């Protein structure tokens, strides 16, 4: 390779890197723009030119959203349903994953097929019958009703099964020698070895649940029972056509999941690649 062609290749590489950086900044710009707009007074927001920083920084829209609307109530609903869905999903999936991975029992193969089948079924098509079911159980407008259909999450089971499969057999045999029961083996041997993946799965299950829209939107008709994801789009009179207030509410709705991602970046990306069937 001659010196000049090597320099040329480095130049092309540099341009590609520079382009990547520019696109990355542009990509995140709408998020930045939303946040900045929510910090401007309403009359500055609608100025017909681009101001990348507010002339007068104000938190009035956040104070308005938090005190004058039901956003606090929606926050509680979102936290309660997302935490509930996460705990139930993780605990039931962990047990099934363990049974599939470590135990031999007659229903094992049909059970596995049921789980694989539920991967393929689009839950969006089940909304009618989910609604009928939850209505008949008297659970519309309740946290339990919002949570229930969100518990179909086969990915978590499969990931647990794969991780339990990888635990060396010696651990299990040693524990069985000590006369430990299955529950003891699961909680004293298998779970402590897999806290990492449990944290990862719990965080993304929380994020998925917080972000779910269609079902919470159908299951709730009372304003005070809405989750924040649904609430900020449904109660427009609370914010009027005040763009800055709407954006402040949106920032508040996105903040918990954005923070969860930024704090646990590696865990989140690990769980998401695992959920697509790629070993992270």
């Amino acid at each position, binding site marked *: 390779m001659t010196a000049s062609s090597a320099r040329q290749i480095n130049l092309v590489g540099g341009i590609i890197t520079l382009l990547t950086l520019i696109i990355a900044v542009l990509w995140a710009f*709408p998020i930045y723009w939303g946040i900045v707009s929510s910090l401007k007074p309403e009359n500055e927001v609608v100025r017909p030119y681009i101001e990348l920083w507010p002339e007068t920084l104000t938190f009035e829209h956040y104070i308005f959203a938090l005190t004058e609307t039901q956003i606090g109530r929606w926050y509680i609903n979102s936290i309660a349903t997302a935490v509930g869905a996460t705990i139930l999903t993780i605990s039931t*999936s962990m047990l099934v994953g363990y049974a599939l991975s470590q135990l031999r029992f007659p229903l094992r193969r049909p059970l596995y097929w049921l789980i694989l089948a539920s991967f393929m079924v689009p839950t969006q098509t089940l909304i009618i019958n989910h609604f009928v079911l939850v209505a008949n159980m008297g659970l519309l407008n309740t946290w339990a009703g919002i949570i229930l259909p969100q518990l*179909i999450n086969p990915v978590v089971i499969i990931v647990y099964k794969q991780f339990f499969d990888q635990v060396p057999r010696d651990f299990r045999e040693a524990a069985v020698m000590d006369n430990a029961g299955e529950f003891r083996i699961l909680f004293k041997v298998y779970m402590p070895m897999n806290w990492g993946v449990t944290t990862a799965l719990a965080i993304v299950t929380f994020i998925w649940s917080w*972000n779910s829209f269609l079902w919470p939107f159908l299951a709730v008709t009372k304003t005070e029972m809405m989750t924040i994801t649904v609430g900020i789009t449904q109660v427009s009179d609370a914010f009027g056509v005040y763009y800055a207030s709407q954006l402040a509410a949106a920032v508040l709705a996105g903040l918990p999941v954005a923070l969860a991602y930024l704090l646990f970046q590696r865990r*989140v990306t690990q769980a*998401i690649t695992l959920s697509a069937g790629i070993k992270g």
Partner: protein
Amino acid sequence: MLRNTRRETLVALVLIAPFLAIYGLTFVYPTVAMVNLSFTDAPLIGPGQWVGFDNYTRLAGERRFDTAFWNTAYFVALSVIPGTFVAMVIALGVSRLTGRMQALVLALFFLPYILPVSVVYRLWDWTLNFQFGIAMYVFDIWGIERVPIFKTTTWFMPAVAFVTIWWTCGFSILLFLAGLRAIPAEIYEAASLDNTGRWTMFRRITWPLLWPVTALVTTIQLILQLKIFDQVYLFSTGGRPNDNLVLVYYIFQRAFVNNQGGRAAAIAVVLFLIVVIVSVLNFQLMRLAERRK
């Protein structure tokens, strides 16, 4: 070591009991009930008369079903392959970076994927706002005439597809990056000894070795976008929902607006079958590809 089969079965049953109860209630039962419902003229809640295949035959000549079906297909075409392509290009760029720089840039691309759809809707509704949206100032500067994007049928689907790609691309980028990391560096080193150009390297090494990930990303996107509803619904508010119908939206309209549970269930079964067929085909193709290895 002897296994106590009966004890093991019993323990297994205890372990899977909560799961079976939940799946029976929220998955198996609703699926059977949906198929059943689609053969009746029942309202959303309450009993109905058996009408055979009537609900299905009616779909054939229906204008709204036609719109919903073709809009879904149009949306899939606009989002799946372009989205995969954009994600691959970005992943190639990001993979050149290292360490903290890569983590930062990846976070910028990935952050939208973490946000709830309603936040995405607010951000883009603001950015593309006809009167005050920052995108419209850019239009003005370039001398393009402003358009009320989400109020015109021509612009609606492309714009929603664009927002969807922006929103979900981070996920595909992540998968492509995992795929790129799995390609051994020695192959590139060997190729650069042979004085191979950048483009040839991509075409002869990266592209073929990345093919399984590309197939995976495309099918995940395809199955996901067939089920589109949230964005279309949100961006349609105040616009023209009947022109922007997609299949899930139509199920929602029939069931929850027109109170026709039976007719809605028939649409649901059609979409259900489409998604299951695509999934099974994909599953078989993956198995075939695996065997060829």
